[in-house]
């Protein structure tokens, strides 16, 4: 597993969050949290590194020794996560209870995802933001996909935000009486993640095999 290529990091960061992907709504909240913290911590790191280094040339994301950069990332991410938790508690206590111990773990997810942004040394902030955004969306897409599979098959329902008369849960008639409840358990999460990683690896391998379809023939 090459350490720095994005897909590896993505799935690495996903591991703890899978425990929450039993219902789609929890997955949505979790992805929202991760994306929020990821973006803000990226921005904060960018500003901090530029601020502390005075007016030298374009400053690298990892100003100072790795340990210093590492500590700064730790501080920023954990405080942002704490604030997200507080916000979530106020905004949607039910969601906060559902996330449980996995809300604080967003800090670790973001450390993983924010880690080793390729080529951020001398790039304008816009590029780092796009990079982080890409990672965040990748994380959210994977998590919600797994949550969809697990909840639809595992419980026969899809729970979303209760908007007005919508009531929040879509019931799949046939499945709801005898759903594959085993998918809802921890084991199901690991299986879905395993197959998701396999599928994404197959796709990226096939994409690498013939980049634009046409020229692969030389």
């Amino acid at each position: 597993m090459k350490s720095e290529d994005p897909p590896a990091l993505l799935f690495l960061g996903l591991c703890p969050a899978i425990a929450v992907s039993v219902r789609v709504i929890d997955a949505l909240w979790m992805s929202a949290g991760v994306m929020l913290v990821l973006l803000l911590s990226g921005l904060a790191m960018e500003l901090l590194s530029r601020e502390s280094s005075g007016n030298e040339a374009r400053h690298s994301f990892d100003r100072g020794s790795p340990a210093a950069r590492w500590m700064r990332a730790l501080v920023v991410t954990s405080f942002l996560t704490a604030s997200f938790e507080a916000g979530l508690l106020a905004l949607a206590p039910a969601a906060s209870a559902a996330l449980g111990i996995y809300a604080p773990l967003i800090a670790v997810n973001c450390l993983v995802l924010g880690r080793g942004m390729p080529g951020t040394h001398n790039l304008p902030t816009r590029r780092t933001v796009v990079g982080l955004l890409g990672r965040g969306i990748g994380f959210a897409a994977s998590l919600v996909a797994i949550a969809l599979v697990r909840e639809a098959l595992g419980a026969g329902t899809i729970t979303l935000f209760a908007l007005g008369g919508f009531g929040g849960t879509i019931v799949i008639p046939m499945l709801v009486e005898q759903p594959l409840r085993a998918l809802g358990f921890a084991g199901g999460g690991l299986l879905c993640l395993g197959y998701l990683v396999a599928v994404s690896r197959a796709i990226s391998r096939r994409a690498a095999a013939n980049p634009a379809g046409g020229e692969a023939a030389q």
Partner: protein
Amino acid sequence: MSWAAIILTFALVDNVILSRLLGVWPAAGARGGMRAAAGVGGFMAVLMAGSAVGGWALDSQVLVPLGFTLLRTPAFVFLVASLALALQAFNGRFLPSFLRVTGVSIPEIGINTAGLGLVLIATRGEYSAPESLVAGLAAGAGYFLVTAMMTAIRERLEVEPVPRALKGFPLQLITAGLMAYAFMAFDRAFLARVLGG
């Protein structure tokens, strides 16, 4: 909870990897042999025990009296991160193969998820200091058991013609998933009957 209940809960019923899905990467992704697996297990046991007790101390003595409960997350993240780095520096020689093998400085973050997760479980469960210590060690033992089993399975699968897309990390996840189903035989009702009986 009686001691036996704590040990069985954290080792088998609420196994850190299989039911809490924490620290999956070091157990599933690592490539070293059985020795590396033993290294990871030992490292995790010490880390979790230390962070559980540290978490208890931090939480009950500092945060709750001062009312900074919102600061729990940063405090715990710092606690576990520093503990992990300290342990890594302390037994670097004991564990070099594992860190070099995966070549990623991420393991201490991966390990953090388990450490941090355990701290949160311990503090939310209102365990006392000795109970947290025992819980940490039991969780470490459970972690080591699952890591050893997955390493033995991975060594066996390395020489088999496995489907290409699934080779390596995805297959370890599926192995962990099947193991999680197997470990669901140890559920709370089973624990209650065994200890109650």
